[in-house]
């Protein structure tokens, strides 16, 4: 036996050399190839059918994709989503803290709110706010049985946009309350005790200790809710709010390119939800502070690392290939 010539001895290795990296024939997966072909064939067929549909007017898709009405609709959709989510998250946190309150009245109020707003369809709720003026032409603030301090016409106060925002936001708050509550319950009880032992009041320890830690649990479903809200905001069409879906309908009612405009709207909804998904990733990363020793890589960092590993030398020693162990006696 002769020793195979190898590089300089590796530091720390007792024998002075490290055994050659294992080279084995990988298991073959023929069915992966078969399934790939089948899936590609089905997708290609579907795309082909859609693209070559006899009455499909692709020019209309191109024409309306950046049309002014559609773009205006997108702005309204985004405004509606943002406002409704702000109401939903803010009110949801308040409701969750109320729900966990030792004061039974406060806790019941929260329970009742969630029961009511989660138990009725959001479409009905938007419709309710939109038509409130029909039973209540004026809204006022005053001392019961005493003087009226302030009064306004319901129609002025609750515009269609306001009706949709209220409907979506108040409904969302009920769902957010449950998400926030789940997050707060997930924080270890020892955290509450440690904060109490330091003399913090309930509100202080909720705001400074429990909620920041609950965020890690709250953020992913909140991202889901935001994406869901972006699409649910299309229900605002019932209140004649000129958002994306309303615009799509208005245009297709005039030119009968129904499917074409549905495709336009779908493209935009997909673009917006994709952007939100990326945003959600970064927010989650921020709230992982202190929970993981190293933060996960951002997609950009991961992409860079991938490029580097493509160009870097393979992880096993190259000499092994150049000097195969052929020098047996």
């Amino acid at each position: 036996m002769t020793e195979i010539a190898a590089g300089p001895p590796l530091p720390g290795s007792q024998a002075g050399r490290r055994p050659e990296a294992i080279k084995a024939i990988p298991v073959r997966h023929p069915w992966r190839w078969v399934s790939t072909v089948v899936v590609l064939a089905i997708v290609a067929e579907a795309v082909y059918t859609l693209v070559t549909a006899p009455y499909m007017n692709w020019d209309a898709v191109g024409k309306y994709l950046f049309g002014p009405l559609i773009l205006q609709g997108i702005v309204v959709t985004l405004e509606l989503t943002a406002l409704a989510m702000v109401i939903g998250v803010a009110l949801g946190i308040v409701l969750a803290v109320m729900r966990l309150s030792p004061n039974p009245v406060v806790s019941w109020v929260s329970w009742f709110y969630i029961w009511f707003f989660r138990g009725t369809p959001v479409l009905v709720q938007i419709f309710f706010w939109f038509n409130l003026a029909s039973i209540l032409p004026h809204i006022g603030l005053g001392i019961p049985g005493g003087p009226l301090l302030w009064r306004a016409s319901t129609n002025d106060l609750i515009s269609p946009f306001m009706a949709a925002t209220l409907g979506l936001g108040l409904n969302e708050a009920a769902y957010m309350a449950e998400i926030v509550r789940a997050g707060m319950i997930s924080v270890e009880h020892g955290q509450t005790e440690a904060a109490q032992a330091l003399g913090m009041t309930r509100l202080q320890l909720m705001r400074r200790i429990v909620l920041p830690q609950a965020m890690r649990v709250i953020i992913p479903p909140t991202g889901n809710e935001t994406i869901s809200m972006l699409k649910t905001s299309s229900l605002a069409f019932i209140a004649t709010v000129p958002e994306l879906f309303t615009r799509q309908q208005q245009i297709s009612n005039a030119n009968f390119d129904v499917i074409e405009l549905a495709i336009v709207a779908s493209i935009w909804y997909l673009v917006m939800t994709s952007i939100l998904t990326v945003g959600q990733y970064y927010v989650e990363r921020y709230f992982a502070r202190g929970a993981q020793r190293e933060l996960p890589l951002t997609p950009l960092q991961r992409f860079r690392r991938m490029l580097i590993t493509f160009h870097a030398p393979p992880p096993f020693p190259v000499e092994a290939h150049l000097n195969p162990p052929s020098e047996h006696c």
Partner: protein
Amino acid sequence: MVKAEAVHKSFGRLEVLRGIDLEVYPKEVMCVIGPSGSGKSTFLRCINHLEKIDAGRLSVDGELVGYRQRGNKLYELPDREICQKRSEIGMVFQRFNLFPHMTALENIAEAPMRVKKVSRSTAEAQARSLLDRVGLADKVKAYPNQLSGGQQQRVAIARALAMQPKLMLFDEPTSALDPELVGEVLDVMRALAHELGMTMVVVTHEMGFAREVGDSLVFMDAGVIVEAGKPRELLSNPQQERTKLFLSKVL
């Protein structure tokens, strides 16, 4: 400093404390030992009102815990006053319970800033000197999960000290630590007793610490104090059969 008279506490039907009588004097270090489930941790938690007692009297610094007496009627204290009283008692937990989303410095400075309304700069300067005192001056910016168990527990002690407590409660402070890390935490506690003259109640399984640092030792079992006395005497010459049995197993 702490006075307990016939303190009783039950969880549902389970009677955890069945009449505890003891007194801790200022600057005294009292160690409490006993098998698990004997009620020693529960008693410790009663002292700062993390648990409510069902019967008996428990007072800290001459004031009842959780109540005010007027005439011969007891009035429950409002939350704000309970918080205020708790802030004068430091507590160190078996599982450290550091706030994982805050650095070591923020963990220590948080309560003085929120509870005592100390300015940020003052609170942080104090936190730095406390970290220095527990030998962790270089860990100011470390998050708890970047620290070893022993380091975390030392930060937790510094966090409790930041409120300038008149009494410190330790709930098995070294039980969750690797054996080689126990020493560094005990060293900090020893310094606390000797240099600051802190009044301490320590629930522990460290007989060496109890013997060396403790001024008094209490052996609890099944919710009652079985035996109490000077640590050296109690450990070397226990009088009760139950104490002898326990010590024969742990020494």
